[in-house]
């Protein structure tokens, strides 16, 4: 799924923004990717409303195509049912009850970060101006007073303006992966709405305060090769006055004087508005109309395409865009703060656990050293056992971390779940004996074959068994029981781990699967159960807990019998 060709497709992703897999990000490559509930899908959605093989995403001629595979509930793209269609950046794909955001940086690379296409042209003679209209950024004066200013604004134009603002507002709050993507979406809408040929956004750099070209878009994609001249003096005027301006005759606008390239570029009209945020000016939006025959423009002058109504609308869009940037930056700051906090917690927890392991290794080394000095083999052996035990602890910690990371993909193979459970029973005998715990195993003889990640299930069960043994350590007649059974009706395989330990306090049961949540105090990492749950969920299963204070706990791992060759439901 992550393979790439000459064109960089590594940044193409599907992010689950609604549904049980919320927050899961799937990378798309050039190989076809199956989408659905089935275990062999590259984009596996654990959504009961999704079909096993729901849709297919393929990469053809530089574009991604999504094709519905006759799914039971259909595939919706931006709210409309589709059979097969090209995906565009920012598209929302609905599979069952899950909503996936398609983001492809590479697709938009040609038109997205095209700041280099914008030429900021300085003009010293800027005190003369033939700007046709100016509009303050104040929102009330922009929209509410429209009728007073123009007198006879047709009703359909007001409706169009409101519709445009509605679409911009919607674009401002829809999920996005970057500020550039958000602004590009707004700029595209703006160009279409005001009938401009092209446009750009110049954004204030939060650090330096400098206004820099950032987003460029053109209505006519064939023209993307030409550069867009933007008058520095107009930008400065808008920034200083905080007013939107419109010029309908670039040729005779003295603000453009000396801007030969602007005339050469065939600019007929231009509008520039401030992007005024709650607290600061975030930049400007600049749009223009052009002609491919500038000599005609010089000869005949210009016919107006931009109206005052357009300017007012653009000012309102400028305000919306600024608020969108502010919100994006605020959310980004929050996200960064949370990320740092999570990193801090991760580092602290792992350091603590590694320190415990180091402490154990030091204990073993101490005994080995003493044994060697006194020539006591028994001490050396005891020390070595401790070192070996801590070596295992490091191994399990690393494996848990790898399992929790996104790098690992479940390796699904056919087999009996009894096999890893029996392996764990044998593996844990020594630990159970050491802790004075009786470890028992009762495996079902009629457990059907299934398709599962053998190493993953081993780890999921092992973590719970280790916890169970720890829970009954030191108790009189401490016992841990491992069982397996098969429930034909829901077609599920159950693995049960029971202990007669002190039980889990009710208030801890709900958060026991949270990462770094441990009931073992300083001895626990809080990774084990989170890993077990992740693995079982990867198999489409769940873990349930029954616990009673003073009597013990029972963890039930229910895993659907996964067999793609013999699915129980013929329909999906």
């Amino acid at each position, binding site marked *: 799924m992550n393979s790439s060709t000459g064109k960089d497709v590594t940044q193409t992703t599907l992010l689950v923004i609604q549904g049980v897999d919320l927050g899961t990000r799937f990378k798309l490559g050039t190989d076809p990717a199956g989408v659905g509930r089935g275990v062999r899908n590259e984009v596996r959605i654990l959504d009961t409303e999704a079909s096993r093989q729901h849709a297919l995403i393929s990469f053809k001629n530089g574009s991604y195509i999504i094709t519905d595979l006759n799914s039971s509930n259909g595939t919706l793209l931006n709210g409309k049912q589709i059979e097969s269609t090209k995906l565009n950046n920012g598209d929302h794909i609905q599979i069952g009850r899950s909503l996936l955001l398609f983001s492809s940086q590479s697709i938009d690379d040609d038109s997205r970060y095209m700041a280099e296409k914008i030429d900021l042209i300085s003009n010293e003679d800027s005190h003369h101006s033939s700007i046709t209209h100016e509009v303050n950024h104040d929102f009330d004066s922009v929209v509410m007073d429209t009728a007073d200013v123009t007198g006879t604004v047709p009703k359909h134009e007001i409706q169009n303006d409101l519709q445009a603002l509605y679409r911009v507002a919607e674009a401002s709050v829809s999920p996005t992966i970057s500020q550039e993507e958000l602004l590009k979406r707004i700029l595209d809408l703006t160009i279409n709405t005001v009938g401009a040929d092209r446009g750009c956004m110049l954004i204030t750099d939060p650090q330096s305060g400098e206004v820099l070209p950032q987003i460029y878009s053109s209505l006519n994609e064939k023209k993307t090769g030409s550069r867009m001249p933007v008058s520095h003096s107009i930008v400065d005027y808008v920034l200083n006055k905080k007013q939107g301006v419109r010029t309908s005759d670039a040729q005779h606008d003295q603000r453009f004087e000396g801007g030969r390239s602007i005339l050469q570029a065939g600019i007929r009209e231009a509008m520039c508005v401030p992007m005024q945020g709650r607290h600061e000016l975030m930049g400007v939006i600049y749009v223009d109309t052009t002609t491919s025959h500038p000599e005609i423009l010089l000869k005949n002058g210009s016919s107006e395409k931009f109206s005052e109504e357009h300017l007012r609308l653009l000012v309102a869009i400028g305000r919306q865009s600024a608020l969108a940037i502010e919100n994006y930056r605020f959310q980004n700051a929050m996200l960064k703060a949370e990320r740092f906090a999570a990193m801090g917690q991760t580092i602290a927890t792992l350091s*603590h656990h590694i*320190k*415990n392991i*180091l*402490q*154990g290794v*030091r*204990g*073993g080394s*101490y*005994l080995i050293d*003493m044994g060697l000095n006194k020539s006591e083999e028994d*001490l050396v052996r*005891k*020390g070595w056992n*401790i070192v070996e*035990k*801590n070596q295992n602890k490091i191994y399990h910690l690393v494996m848990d971390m790898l399992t929790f990371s996104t790098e690992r993909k479940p390796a699904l193979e056919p087999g009996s779940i009894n096999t890893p459970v029996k392996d764990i029973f044998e593996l844990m005998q020594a630990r159970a004996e050491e*802790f004075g715990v009786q470890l028992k195993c009762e495996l079902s003889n009629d457990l059907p074959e299934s398709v599962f990640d053998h190493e993953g299930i081993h780890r999921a069960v092992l973590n719970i068994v280790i916890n169970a043994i720890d*829970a009954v*350590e*030191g*108790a009189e007649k401490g016992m841990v029981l491992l069982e397996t059974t098969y429930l034909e009706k829901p077609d599920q395989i159950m693995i049960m781990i029971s202990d007669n*330990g*002190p039980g889990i306090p009710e208030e801890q049961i709900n958060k026991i699967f949270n990462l770094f949540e441990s009931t073992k*105090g*300083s*001895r626990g990492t809080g990774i084990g159960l989170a890993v077990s749950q992740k693995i079982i969920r990867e198999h489409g299963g769940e873990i349930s807990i029954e616990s009673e204070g003073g009597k013990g706990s029972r963890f039930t791992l229910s895993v659907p019998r996964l067999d793609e060759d013999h699915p129980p439901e013929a329909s999906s």
Partner: protein
Amino acid sequence: MVNGQHVVVFDGLTETEQVLKAILEPQGCRVNRIRKQHSGDITSAEEIPSILVVHDEDASHCTKDKPGWSKVPKIVIGSVKKRSTTDTDQSTHFLVQPFHYAELIDSIESLLQQPRLNH
């Protein structure tokens, strides 16, 4: 020196108990580890240990509801170095993890050499 004494390791790492057992038991010192969840079972005054090895997070409640345990000399294992108070100077030693076990053995021997407080 440690003969006839009783060291209790309150919860924490099993390795602490294993090392202390390996070193101290041949010298006639009894070493036990009590799990936190079973600590409530101890109520008899006869079980008062000579030394208590405890993690700082358990230090405050390990002696709760156990007659005579509050006056038992303690070795508190923690993550950060704590300043000793006047009350704890004599009967409490702090060790910062990861420590060397020779330090733990030294601390136990040094606390056992101190004149015992009346229980």
